[in-house]
């Protein structure tokens, strides 16, 4: 078990998501930044679908009650193991009683803690990703316990990798989404030539942007949305749906972020600059 001594700002268990319930209105959920998680799970020779902790902005303090191995990835959050600094993308052996804690957020916004064989909370509808009301809460609280599988012997084939960080990238590559063709010359011009900044309304459901386009009066019937869909409200606001985003919506869908662009955006906080580029 992993004991959550202090939960931090927003820490949750996530895997690659909950599929096949979108037709009942259940978002996919899952890690916001898949790229960072793929690498961490790979170092631990885990399954690609093994669950990790997603740690947002301010990290938790964690107490290990069993031996295991861990890898940190994603945001750089000044983590320490028993008060000694540790780095991302390196396998660390954990002993009983070890304490992992987090300090200052140096780069990015979401850090990941991957563990040998994954975290194992109750699987709900094919996934252990937290999402209320599927799971009892959206995030971990002080004192919570998270199960993982104790693995006696693990000798990592590779113990550390050098990663080209994408935390500073600002270009979001996008595809045209179903209502792209409604955009006027002026709207297109602004959309692809200006920088946008992340609004304070940003979370696992959606990222809103501060800068607006010229408004519109295009109306449509409610239709499916995806993580990474850029919605365009009549007032001209851009809302980028993320992993916990609603499965249908009535706003025109003008762009669709690539998987990598979703990961890049997931590492942005309020005020960060981004721009769009068609694939």
């Amino acid at each position, binding site marked *: 078990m992993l004991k959550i001594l202090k939960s931090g700002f927003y820490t949750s268990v996530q895997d690659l998501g909950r599929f096949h319930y979108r037709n009942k*209105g259940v978002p996919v959920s899952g890690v916001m930044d898949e790229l960072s998680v793929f690498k961490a799970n790979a170092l631990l020779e885990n399954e690609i679908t093994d669950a990790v902790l997603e740690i947002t902005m301010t990290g938790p303090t964690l107490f290990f009650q069993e031996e295991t191995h861990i890898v940190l990835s994603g945001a750089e959050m000044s983590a320490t193991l028993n008060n000694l600094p540790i780095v991302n993308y390196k396998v660390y052996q954990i002993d009983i009683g070890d304490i992992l804690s987090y300090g200052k957020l140096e780069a990015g916004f979401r850090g990941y803690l991957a563990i040998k064989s994954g975290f194992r909370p109750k699987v709900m509808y094919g996934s252990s990703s937290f999402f209320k009301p599927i799971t009892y809460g959206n995030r971990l609280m002080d004192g919570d316990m998270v199960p993982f599988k104790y693995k006696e012997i693990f000798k990592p084939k590779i113990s550390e990798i050098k990663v080209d960080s994408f935390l500073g990238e600002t270009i979001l590559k996008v595809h045209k989404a179903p209502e792209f063709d409604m955009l006027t010359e002026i709207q297109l011009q602004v959309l692809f030539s200006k920088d946008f900044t992340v609004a304070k309304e940003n979370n696992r459901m959606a990222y809103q942007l501060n800068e607006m386009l010229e408004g519109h009066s295009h109306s449509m019937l409610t*239709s499916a949305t*995806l993580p990474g869909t850029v919605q365009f409200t009549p007032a001209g606001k851009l809302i980028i749906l993320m992993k916990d985003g609603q499965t*249908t*919506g009535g706003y025109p869908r003008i762009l669709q972020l690539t998987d990598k662009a979703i990961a890049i955006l997931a590492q942005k906080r309020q005020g960060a600059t981004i721009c769009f580029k068609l694939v």
Partner: protein
Amino acid sequence: MEIPQIRTKPFGVHAVLVEWPVEVSELILNKILQFESFLKIQCLEGANWEYVSAYNSLLVVNTKMTIDYVSFSKELQHWYASMGEAKPYKRYLWRLPVSYDPGFGIDLDDISVQLKIEISELIRLHTSHVYTIYGIGFLPGFMYLGGLPEVLEISRKATPRLKVEKGAVGIAGKQTGVYPQESPGGWNIVGNCPVPIFDATKKEPCFVSVGDQIQFYKVSRAKYDLHKIEVEVGIYQPEKIQIDA
């Protein structure tokens, strides 16, 4: 009967959107559900395909692989043309109890004044119509219901409530529906349904599907409380009638 044409649009590299003519109709909805069922059973093998239907569209998603849009859209058109009169899934009419007790129907008085209808007539109208589920989204188990009688059309509340109770039954515009969980909301609340539309303690968390129909019936506050207890102990079975059999 002429078959409505479809058009496809790419939606990222994992999904293709299939669209029917822009109208809210049972005919279109049936075609969408038929096609979804045909794709599932006869065309697309494997567990990685997922479908989201709503009003006049069907999203086909592959949860693992990328889709080659050009060839896949051709296949979709071909499959649609060759579908014939494939049978859609079984559809059900669900009868859901609603208490219109003033403690639940907190906007009944306002609606009655605005629409110039007696509350009893409002309840009679709301319960005498059968509504079709055109989509499920916004929240887990939130049904987009069509078929509200025109005389009950009323605009959303000018200021949305920060908290609408779980089970609240509301009307707004051409729609009626049930809030499956506590949530902010701008609909006019007429009552409360004791049956959870979404229940994560169940093996199948949401008993309704797109294409099903809903009819509300009025129950007393006492009956409401009884149903609530039946739900809690797990013996409540929602009433259903198969349609299109």
